[in-house]
């Protein structure tokens, strides 16, 4: 396949960026999208140009590093991560637009690489269960009903890629934040910190400059791991509950 790529190039966080156009040839439908970008970069290096910077690591859809907006969609046309998108989803002669995540809480580092440390700070605000090493009771001391364990797992699957934010018209991080809150709050082990967790994480999310949620639902559509939109509703319920209980104390 022969393709025209229009790629966002930006030297660093402070520089102005712009779209640049490149041609690539001999692209096999079995290549992954990132392998296609590898081909472009090999070409650029040999012609003395700066290769396109992009985040990637495991290339099997689990580390959450890759993060491209492809033809306007976070992670492109299939419901998966960029690294698991294959060129068979495109046609010979296509023009493909490639941009970084767009959100004010994710400033561009270079080209297609953004800074997602705001996600780390949301987790640091309370996305954990306080259980210092050595203090744990026997694992079978507290059975967890299977539906609760499954609910926790379904939300724990979040890979922290940020597609939800990139897809949201408001740049909101509600789906990311709710996934962690729901994972931990449904478990008996997470109960002691249930209220502080949701209050602190939501406060941090607001502090980071993510937009407000208008339930557009784009986040859940873009999520490569299928975190459901209802996750946000569950978090709102947790937040209301916690706020009410805090005001009673």
């Amino acid at each position, binding site marked *: 396949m022969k393709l025209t790529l229009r790629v966002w190039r930006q030297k660093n966080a402070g520089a102005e960026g712009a779209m640049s156009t490149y041609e690539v040839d001999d692209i096999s439908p079995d290549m992954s999208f990132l392998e296609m970008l*590898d081909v472009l970069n090999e070409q650029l290096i040999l012609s003395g140009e700066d290769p396109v910077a992009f985040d990637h690591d*495991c*290339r099997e*859809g689990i580390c*959450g590093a890759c993060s491209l907006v492809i033809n306007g969609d976070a992670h492109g046309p299939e419901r998966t991560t960029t690294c698991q998108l294959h060129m068979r989803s495109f046609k010979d002669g296509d023009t493909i637009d490639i941009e970084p995540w767009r959100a004010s809480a994710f400033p561009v580092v270079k080209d297609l690489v953004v800074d997602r440390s705001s996600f780390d700070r949301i987790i640091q605000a309370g996305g954990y269960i306080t259980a210092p*090493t050595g203090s744990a009771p026997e694992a079978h001391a507290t059975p967890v009903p*299977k539906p609760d*364990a499954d609910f926790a797992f379904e939300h724990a699957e979040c890979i*922290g890629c940020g597609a939800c934010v990139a897809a949201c018209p408001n740049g909101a991080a509600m789906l990311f934040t709710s996934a962690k809150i729901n994972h931990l709050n449904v478990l008996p082990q997470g109960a002691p910190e249930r209220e502080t967790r949701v209050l602190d994480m939501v406060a941090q999310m607001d502090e980071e400059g993510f937009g407000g949620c208008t339930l557009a639902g784009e986040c859940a559509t873009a999520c490569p791991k299928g975190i459901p939109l209802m996750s946000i509703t569950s978090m709102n319920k947790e937040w209301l509950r916690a706020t009410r209980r805090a005001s009673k104390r």
Partner: protein
Amino acid sequence: MTSYVDYTTGEPVADTKAPSGPINERWDKRRFEAKLVNPANRRKQTVIVVGTGLAGGAAGATLTEQGYRVVQFCYSDSPRRAHSIAAQGGINAAKNYRNDGDSIHRLFYDTVKGGDFRARESNVHRLAQISVEIIDQCVAQGVPFAREYGGLLDTRSFGGVQVSRTFYARGQTGQQLLLGAYQALSRQIAAGNIEMHPRTEMLDLIVVDGRARGIVARDLITGRIDTHFADAVVLASGGYGNVFYLSTNAMNSNATAIWRAHRRGAYFANPCFTQIHPTCIPRTGDHQSKLTLMSESLRNDGRIWVPRAKGDNRPPNEIPEDERDYYLERIYPSFGNLVPRDIASRAAKNVCDEGRGVGPGGQGVYLDFADAIRRMGRKAVEAKYGNLFDMYQRITDEDPYEVPMRIYPAVHYTMGGLWVDYDLQTTIPGLFAIGEANFSDHGANRLGASALMQGLADGYFVLPATINDYLARNPRKSAADDVTDEHPVVQEVLAETEDRLNLLLAVDGDRTPDSFHRELGELMWEFCGMARTDAGLRKALERIPEIRDEFWRRIKVPGTGEEFNQSLEKANRIVDYLELAELMCLDALHRSESCGGHFREESQTPDGEAARRDDEFGYAAAWEFTGTGEAPTLHKEDLVFEYVHPTQRSYA
């Protein structure tokens, strides 16, 4: 100059830290004998941790819980992305929840035997003991392990064992365990106890007066090279499988931290022990950038086969039952499809070499779920393996519910690594190596679901106990003890690092970093892969210095060092691969026996199994660096087996 293959043999190396006495009391005894640091003094001592995977993440969190100050590094944008996250199948623990005859001793036994008797008994026994606590710890952190309807934990079987002791979270066990460690780490970062440096890569180790005192690291965004000092340094930087270019490792996983430590004096043990995982998705072409693993857990229910006849090109569903060869079930009736990884990989290679492989280029075998779907129903198969099937379909565009998967072995894990004693300390005092970065527990072959167990055992329980002893014996007395940038050793290490990067940028040749990496990888796969020979290894040892030479003449790295420069990062890692590859081949050449993942064609039993030679090679090979391309010095650690007596492994 002597030739690289003319290595010399130096003094033996011995683990002086493991106590004697009954094996099940050794860990308690060591913990009691180890000196402690007064809690009030701990906050005055700093530990550098390089890496945030299962071992590093767990260690960073636990050391700060104990009161130490930690400065931690990872090359990713977030500690949550370390490659432990990609582990699929599960984590072993001798809980015996199934009442199926499991015990700490059995896990110990299985691991020593699975490792083909090339691991240290004391370490492996401790690992089995701690396995039980790991599950408790992870459940307390909220790791959503699979559960039964009664609310208790579910388990499954894995290769090389006959009990069901593997705990799992669907096909994402590594992810869930890593996020548990990441969350514990995050709590300590928020509390100000950990100074976290993401997107920062260690480029060298600072050794002052014979002790590890810090590292040189590069901020990958600004390109700034800085020094960081501490009372001890812990390397948790993972394995070196990416020497092969194509592996199941993450693209940026690399050997630089451990190789630079090796150059500074840490012995490197058993570098040729690499694990080739039997169930990976076959490659599709030259553009391939990495290989994807399909969890070994699939071998619980999937059946592996190839056509009986050579060159049978019919679609799999048209090949009748009696014209299929379920070769693992045939050759190994008691373990069947669940033989250890090295055996399954070699068997796949053998049937492909016979011309019975399937798929493009005949480099593949079938992993078939038709029977499982008939027996359990599609729903149950979906619940157990759904995400793996989806992943397979996404990559290959084939539906594994309808047609059998095609799989082929690929480089997956490295059992070798920095030599460590029972305390996980390297031969450089104050330098510790944990997780895949060390060589300690898996011998010549790692059993499935044991990497997660070892990473977390080292990080949560072993290192935090043993490092106390070192820190107590080497207290920071006053500010005068502190190493600073002005120290001549530090100046020298900094200058060497800067010179190396500047040289890479200055060559301005005509070949990309990837082209060299791929060339080296292909050479290693051919001569130091699944089957190795004296002649092949000698050929590789001739070729590697030539590639290295060409690299320094023709490498092209665009841009500058003072910016985000992914080509420079890659090129710098290849510099180290080009040296490590040489040591791997030499180690493979010198070990003329076969054992575990190391198969020398000259040393096999009449039926083609690996033939160990315990009298000659019953040791761990710890190599000392003497200079780039210079013959290294071999130090042998004799392995003594008091509890599990070496026998030729049999899984038939």
